[in-house]
């Protein structure tokens, strides 16, 4: 009888496991291909210096992308992440320039991010406003605040302690990458192994069903935007460490890169499906791609074209791999 099927589920075969793994991480094969290609094509690609600079340059993007991942999991979108990064950097930069206190700077960066996150979360979670327009509104407000407070130019006077930190190396990795790594792991655990994380996924999968199951959808949603804001705050601070100064436009160009990284990793925009680990891989694709194409000396506009084409080729590849048995 076929009931046996349910009672002793077949031990997954090697092939089936590979199959489901690829499904889980559609970005992985693309990364492998890119790594192999670039390291053969450019002798500089796998040098310590290059790896280090790629890690540092993508730390801000990674933190923003984690926030965006959570928001996407609920089926929402947060366009304000990029400019909240800028606003937090500027406000923290000003506070640090005035007080020369790093801890106060960290606190303000975090507080700024959380404040914007709370605003988004309240409006979207409790007032049930449309996430796209709402965060577009806060995006502009955050950008405006960043420009108003800094008058458009970099805020100078970053404490030397923070500058030194940018050169610090822990376990052979730049300190900012270690911070990013720790936060990433934290969120992998938070989303994958806590009831809060599960509630976020369920909420995104079917909001109405989540309500019918007794999940406090408004509060969960608020917490997601709040955390995304907090991460943007930290990202703003990291941008100061990386760049030495707080600049008002630092996050503005990152929005599409962040969204691209998240979706490339395989987190769906409609909610309920995805993970931080996928986002790590998605961001990695973009990071490897830009670094590799730069090292190969490909002209900027051709890089753009190649990036676009590779997204389709890569996705085709991933789909092909997951379809084959």
């Amino acid at each position, binding site marked *: *009888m*076929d*009931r046996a*099927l*349910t*009672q002793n*589920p077949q031990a997954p075969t090697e092939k089936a496991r590979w199959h489901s793994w690829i499904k889980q991480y559609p970005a992985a094969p693309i990364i492998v291909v890119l790594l192999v290609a670039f390291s053969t094509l450019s002798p500089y690609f796998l040098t310590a210096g290059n790896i280090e600079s790629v890690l540092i340059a993508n730390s801000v993007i990674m933190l923003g992308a984690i926030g965006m991942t959570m928001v996407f999991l609920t089926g929402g979108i947060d366009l304000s992440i990029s400019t909240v990064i800028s606003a937090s950097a500027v406000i923290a930069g000003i506070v640090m320039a005035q007080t020369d206190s790093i801890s106060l700077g960290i606190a303000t960066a975090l507080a700024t991010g959380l404040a914007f996150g709370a605003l988004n979360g309240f409006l979207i979670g409790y007032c049930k406003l449309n996430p796209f327009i709402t965060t577009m509104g806060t995006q502009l407000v955050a950008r405006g605040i960043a420009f108003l407070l800094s008058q458009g130019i970099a805020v100078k006077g970053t404490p030397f302690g923070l500058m030194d930190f940018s050169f610090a190396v822990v376990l052979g990795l730049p300190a900012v990458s270690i911070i990013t790594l720790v936060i990433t792991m934290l969120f992998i*655990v938070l989303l994958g*192994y*806590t*009831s*809060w994380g*599960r*509630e976020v*996924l*369920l909420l995104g*999968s*079917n909001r*109405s*069903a*989540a*309500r*019918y*199951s*007794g*999940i*406090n959808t408004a509060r969960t949603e608020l917490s997601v935007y709040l955390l995304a804001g907090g991460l943007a705050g930290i990202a703003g601070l990291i941008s100061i460490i990386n760049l030495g100064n707080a600049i008002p436009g630092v996050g503005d160009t990152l929005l599409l890169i962040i969204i691209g990284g998240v979706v490339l990793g395989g987190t*769906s925009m409609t909610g*309920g*499906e995805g993970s931080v680990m996928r986002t790590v891989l998605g961001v990695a694709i973009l990071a490897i791609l830009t670094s590799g194409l730069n090292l190969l000396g490909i002209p900027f506009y051709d890089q753009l074209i190649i990036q676009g084409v590779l997204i389709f080729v890569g996705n085709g590849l991933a789909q092909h791999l997951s379809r084959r*048995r």
Partner: protein
Amino acid sequence: MFTKQPIASLSVLGLAKAFSGKTVVKDVSFSLYPGEIVALVGENGAGKSTTKNMLCGLLPPSEGEIQVAGQTVTVVDGKQHGIGAVHQELSLFSSLSVAQNICISDLPGKPGRIDWPACRQIAEQQLAQLGVDVDVNQRVENLGAGKQQIVEIAKALLHASKVLILDEPTTSLTAPERERLFTLMRRLKKQGVAIIFISHFMDEIYQMSDKFICLRDGRQVGSGNIADTPRRELEEMMVGRTLDEAKVTLTPPSTELAVQVERLSSHYFHDISFSIRRGEVLGIAGLMGAGRTEVAETLFGLRPFEGRLLVDGEQMIKPNVRQMKQRGVCYLTEDRRRNGLFGVRSVKENLSAAKLSRFVQRRVKGMGFRGEASQAQEWVEQLNISVPSIDEAVSSLSGGNQQKVLLGRWLATLPRVCILDEPTKGVDIGAKFEIHKKIAALAASGVAVLLVSSDLPELLDLSHRILVMRTGHIVGEFAREDFDAVEIISLAASSAFEKQRA
């Protein structure tokens, strides 16, 4: 060929379907002649819907041949071949109007200029045939589940000139609407339309069909004339084993009140009062749109209300779902797709969704889900859910199995008050009996059960008491010894008759 029979409207030979290597339908062969109604029967997950999907061109068969009116076709095109289907899960467009939904596959007028008045007229005609009164300009999302089902049927009828496939069309319908549907099926039959009828209600199958095809685990295990096959035999052919005597025994309830409802009113109902005792099964009968679902949802804290609601003697003021859950109340929704299932998530996660904290590992508070998988596996076995693995996405399950998952989710919370809205919607006979036994056992253990169902025999079998609702009011109450199917239906329906007369 020396047959005197007319050409088959539709015939299939060795039809098979596999999803990523797993065969779910195999060796299905039959012919369907004009003017005959063939019942497609089988347990949940037997492959009925999958077969239907291949017959109406939604899924390409992995193997086998389909002939329409004697011609072999590679892909079935519903409109061209005159094949219409009512799908198990509603396939309506919620933000379009009823008229637009009904006509969408065959719009009147030119492609560049739809004739909207004609469209409305067609829709009104279709609905009039089914004898229901629905505003065709209304958006479908504003209709209750029952009326949506009617719209779905009206839509399929429109271009089913040769073959009509009905996949569990009656799950959301109450007796009068079923009767109208059957009348219509008889008329179509007379007109020479061949009908494939999928249902888990044996009464209906014996009432309506001429022949049957029985599937078990994706294989065709029998076919023949309904008239020559005793009901018992067909049932056993479906499940592949001998069935026990299907009779649940009810234990008398205690006197302790679990739920009291006093003068409850909302936008959907008015002045509702009743109480449920521990160990009692209280049934609510009514036509679709009577407001039963709204009462049930209100009791679960999903909707605002006026009046008093007491659980265990404690008044609930503006309760929310969480508070009701803490009091041990659970609610099984009638609309599993919209309000129940987390489609892309796994069976395991769907089973644990209502009681996440139950699985939380204690060592680090709030972290990890130790025991989730084994619990889920246990429920899968208890409810006999047919699923390749508990990590499978719940949306790939068959309809009846999805319903079981949902039921499992709430039974897993070990409720003290159980509100069940159409609990056996789409569940096969064997499993339905198991669920009935479970409900009876639940009541026997002191759980108060509120049972909302459009399946009157189910209500009569399981309830201690039945309330009858009509347009938002309670219009009658029957104790078990006074149960009378005819009287209950006429009480529930009288408003509909009034409306027709007016």
